[in-house]
């Protein structure tokens, strides 16, 4: 217990120092010492985060450049880096010494006898005499302390390890990729090149790109195609429909990615089976557009409708001569519906019937009347006049190299009126060959029946009255009747053939329509995804897609060094994939333009959706003009019904048509098919307003399509969805990047301002 003489403090004038000043002096020394002590505590481990981070980066860089780094590990990498950061921050904060701890260290090293620690402890009670005395004593001790000697700045450790780790990291980036892969010196001689790997392209299934409602609609489409497939009798068409259905199902269930789906669609479009009868490509009205499947399908449908209508009218006219009875009524009903299949059955039934002479005479007259009615040119005079007008104006344009404004307006009006007539009556002119064939068949049958009838009458008048003569007459009578019945059967076969042809063409159009819809959905989803990725890149501070493509192009133009230098698997494939992707995008855009040329964008092929099916987001809003709402729960292909069996969907995706569900010919017609304006505008890049003729009393419908937005795939996407996608990306970028808080606030404020608001009360309109 030896007293330390060096600690003796004698009473001196300095002892009268103001306690506050004395305390300030102590605190000043402690502040100076605290930072140095903090660093002293951190210095031994200060470089470990640098070592770990640099070594980790070097490992990652090498693995990534050699293609050994799976993209799925990126998230783990981010979490690892975040963990290192958090551990570093926590360690730094935890090692910050308190003022008392600092004072104790200074006391210990400065041999101040714990004076500074005691002063810190009792500084809050500076009014107490003992505290004053102790603080003054501490101030005197602190004045004699040289903090720079007690706590010198230490060199962080381990310095060598950090230098080594940084060197490794630099080497991992700067060493040429060829050296890493152990390639020849000739390849290395290209010089140092930052051969960082191209961004990994994650294979995104088409189902991931499409929205939930679109996927639901695809599933409904698959069910629809299954129905149609079951009804089609032509084997190639049935097989083709099955393939279409399979692709739709695969896309809906995520088995196909977007590229594969588009390839499949292209294959199926090319593989659509031809109709059983030979197409007459030089038919008037086809205007040489047979290669355009959509146009050809529309022309087909118009011709079928014209044939169906002509047959219906002819049969109804002929039935006026038919003997009254149940059969006549049934045939009348079938004729009114344009159901050629049902008519064929009824005619067959007629052929089997044992008719009296009077009845036979009546049916023969009916056949003659039908043949006569079919022989009449069904082309309306107005149609002919309009066609002539259009032809004349086009000749004038060709001759004069243009048209005046008034003539151009007249030409447009004439075309629109012609198109309206075509929609109303079908393609009567184009259907003439079919009608003539039917007329010839009907006329031959009627003539043959009349001839048989006359021979029968003559034979009845000839001959004796013996039993042998009577037996011969009866035999001849039976033969005549059989011949007449045979003619009826031929007529029935002819109608059935026509009905089957129409049915198969309809099925083809159904498949075509699904293919087009699917392709369009994929195109839009792809563009939407590309737009979002472009936004993500910009949000990360990178250049946009176009700039990236330009940069890629620059690299390729640079002697192809980039591709040459990358021999690792995946490098060239990646470039090819990029090129294919760009080509597909271009093809899809061209396909969209072709689609825009077609006169009827929707309502093809008598498609009927399940009553409660989900609406298709890209359906054009249509207004029903059919005679009565469709009642069928499933789709049935029509067989000889009314000329036009195009269904029509209202805004909610439900159908309103003139079909009879019970009869299975659930096809109607309405203004929904008049969406060609939208298709045209979409393809040609000019926004345009179309006036759509709705049902009587419903008033006109105005429809506008903004082409730029539609091309980007936003026009049919809810604003809420778009906002959510982009806001999520922006928020993620804000969290990841080190941005000043003020800038973050600006971005958040912007997204807050544009976020979707709730619709006003009473408004049923969805927020867009």
């Amino acid at each position: 217990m030896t007293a330390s003489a060096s600690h003796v403090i004698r009473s001196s004038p300095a002892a009268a120092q103001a306690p506050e000043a004395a305390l300030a002096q102590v605190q000043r020394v402690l502040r100076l010492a605290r930072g140095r002590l903090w660093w002293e505590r951190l210095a031994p481990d200060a470089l470990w985060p640098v070592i770990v981070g640099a070594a980790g980066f070097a490992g990652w860089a090498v693995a990534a450049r050699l293609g050994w780094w799976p993209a799925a590990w990126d998230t783990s990498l981010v979490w690892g880096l975040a963990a290192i950061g958090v551990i570093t921050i926590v360690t730094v904060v935890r090692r910050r010494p308190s003022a008392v701890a600092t004072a104790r260290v200074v006391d210990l090293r400065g041999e101040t006898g714990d004076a500074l620690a005691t002063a810190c402890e009792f500084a809050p009670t500076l009014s107490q005499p003992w505290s004053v005395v102790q603080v003054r004593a501490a101030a005197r001790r602190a004045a004699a302390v040289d903090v720079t000697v007690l706590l010198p700045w230490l060199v962080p450790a381990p310095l060598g390890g950090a230098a080594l780790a940084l060197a490794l990291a630099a080497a991992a980036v700067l060493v040429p990729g060829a050296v890493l892969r152990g390639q020849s010196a000739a390849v290395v001689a290209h010089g140092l090149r930052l051969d960082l790997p191209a961004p990994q392209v994650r294979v995104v299934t088409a189902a991931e790109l499409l929205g939930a409602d679109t996927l639901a609609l695809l599933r409904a489409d698959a069910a629809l195609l299954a129905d149609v497939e079951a009804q089609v009798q032509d084997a190639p068409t049935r097989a083709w429909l099955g393939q279409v259905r399979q692709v739709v199902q695969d896309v809906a269930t995520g088995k196909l990615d977007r590229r594969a789906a588009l390839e499949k669609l292209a294959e199926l479009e090319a593989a659509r089976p031809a109709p059983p009868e030979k197409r007459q490509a030089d038919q008037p009205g086809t205007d040489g557009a047979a290669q355009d499947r959509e146009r050809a399908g529309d022309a087909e449908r118009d011709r079928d409708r014209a044939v169906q209508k002509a047959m219906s009218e002819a049969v109804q006219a002929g039935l006026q001569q038919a003997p009254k009875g149940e059969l006549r009524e049934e045939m009348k009903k079938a004729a009114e519906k344009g159901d050629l299949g049902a008519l064929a059955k009824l005619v067959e039934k007629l052929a089997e019937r044992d008719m009296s002479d009077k009845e036979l005479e009546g049916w023969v007259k009916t056949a003659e009347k039908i043949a006569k009615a079919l022989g009449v040119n069904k082309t309306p005079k107005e149609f002919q006049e309009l066609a002539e007008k259009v032809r004349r104006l086009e000749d004038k344009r060709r001759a004069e190299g243009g048209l005046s404004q008034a003539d151009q307006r007249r030409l447009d009006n004439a075309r629109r009126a012609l198109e309206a007539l075509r929609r109303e009556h079908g393609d009567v002119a184009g259907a003439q060959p079919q009608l003539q064939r039917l007329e010839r068949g009907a006329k031959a049958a009627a003539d043959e029946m009349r001839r048989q009838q006359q021979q029968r009458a003559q034979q009845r008048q000839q001959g004796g009255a013996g039993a042998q003569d009577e037996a011969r007459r009866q035999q001849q009578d039976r033969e005549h009747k059989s011949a007449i019945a045979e003619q009826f059967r031929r007529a029935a076969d002819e109608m059935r053939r026509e009905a089957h042809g129409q049915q198969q063409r309809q099925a083809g159009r159904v498949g075509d329509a699904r293919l087009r819809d699917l392709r369009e959905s994929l195109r839009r989803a792809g563009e939407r995804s590309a737009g979002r990725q472009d936004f993500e890149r910009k949000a990360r501070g990178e250049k946009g897609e176009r700039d990236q493509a330009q940069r890629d192009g620059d690299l390729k133009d640079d002697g192809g060094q980039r591709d040459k230098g990358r021999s690792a698997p995946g490098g060239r494939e990646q470039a090819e994939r990029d090129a294919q992707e760009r080509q597909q995008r271009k093809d899809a855009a061209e396909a969209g333009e072709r689609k825009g040329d077609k006169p009827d964008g929707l309502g093809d092929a008598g498609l009927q959706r399940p009553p409660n099916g989900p609406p298709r987001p890209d359906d054009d809003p249509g207004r029903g003009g059919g005679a009565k709402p469709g009642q069928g729960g499933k789709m049935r292909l029509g067989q000889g019904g009314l000329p036009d069996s195009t269904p029509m969907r209202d805004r909610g995706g439900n159908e309103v048509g003139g079909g009879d569900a019970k009869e299975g010919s659930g096809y109607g017609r309405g203004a929904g098919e008049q969406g060609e304006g939208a298709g045209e505008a979409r393809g040609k890049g000019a926004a345009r307003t179309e006036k759509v003729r709705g049902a009587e009393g419903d008033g006109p419908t105005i429809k506008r399509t903004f082409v730029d937005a539609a091309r980007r795939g936003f026009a049919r996407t809810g604003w809420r969805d778009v906002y959510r996608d982009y806001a999520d990306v922006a928020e993620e970028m804000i969290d990841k990047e080190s941005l000043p808080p003020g800038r973050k606030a600006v971005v958040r404020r912007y997204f807050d301002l544009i976020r979707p608001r709730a619709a006003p009360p009473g408004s049923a309109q969805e927020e867009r």
Partner: protein
Amino acid sequence: MTTRQRPDIDAALRDPAALEEALAWVQERAKALRGAIGAVIVGQQEVVEGAIAALFAGGHILLEGVPGVGKTMLVRSLAEAVQLEFSRVQFTPDLMPTDIVGTHMLTDDGRGGRALELRRGPIFTNLLLADEVNRATPKTQSALLEAMAEARVTIGRETLPLPRPFFVMATQNPLEMEGTYPLPEAQLDRFMFKLDVPFPSREDLHEIVERTIRLEQASVPAVLDGDDILAIRALALGVPVARPIVDAAIRIVEATHGKAAGARKYLRAGASPRAVQALIVGAKVRAILDGRRNVAAADIRALALPVLRHRVLLNFDAEADGVSRDTVLAGICKDVEAG
């Protein structure tokens, strides 16, 4: 050289300037006391400082040393220097408690009658030297318990206060253990410090020979009185101690209860809470005697051995390994300081 007057302690505890003056007076008196004792006692600085600290702290000390090293001389010198009443009791196996505390004696009252008269024992003094305290029976040893803890004695049905200050200095001889009665733990715990009186060094022996083998003996000047001691004690008890310093004391005491590796291996029982009190009070006194205004961790470390060495019990392993208490306690202090 002018001597400062004893300050008004109450005033000093209210005014920083007066407090500074009082502390300077304490430092001056302590120096004078050390000088007075040093005139007689050669060397033994640690023992002297411990004795002085215990005197001002109001504690008692147990001196252990071989015969002839100056234990009794130290006590006597101290008593002379502070002008306090001094009693010496030589503890022997036949010493009775009443021989120490006193008793009622049946005496003539001078009028032919008899009365019980209280005969106070030698304990009614300021400084009591209990020489070779371990030679008395435990019954006699226990007579000191009440006096040392509460500064009073009970004789029959009468409880009497002892004069203030009351200071017990007991001695015991570590060599002659035959016929001795080791002090019980309760008794030992009453001693603030146990001071080992070492054999003097050669230089000190030369000095002792020179001073003592001559006709005229050195005298001890009186430099303090009882009131001075009480004033210094009051001042010392008022010294505020920072919490880390108190923590250091507590951790050392806790370590004797098995928290330190050395304690777990060699100690059978740890120190009592009185040890913490003794450490803090002793540190306070040590600080102001040194002229410091605050208690330092070094004070705690310096007092750890005197305070703890008689409060811990070694186990069989320590005895078998030949490890002393001081060795174990030094290891504990080192561990605590490092931790």
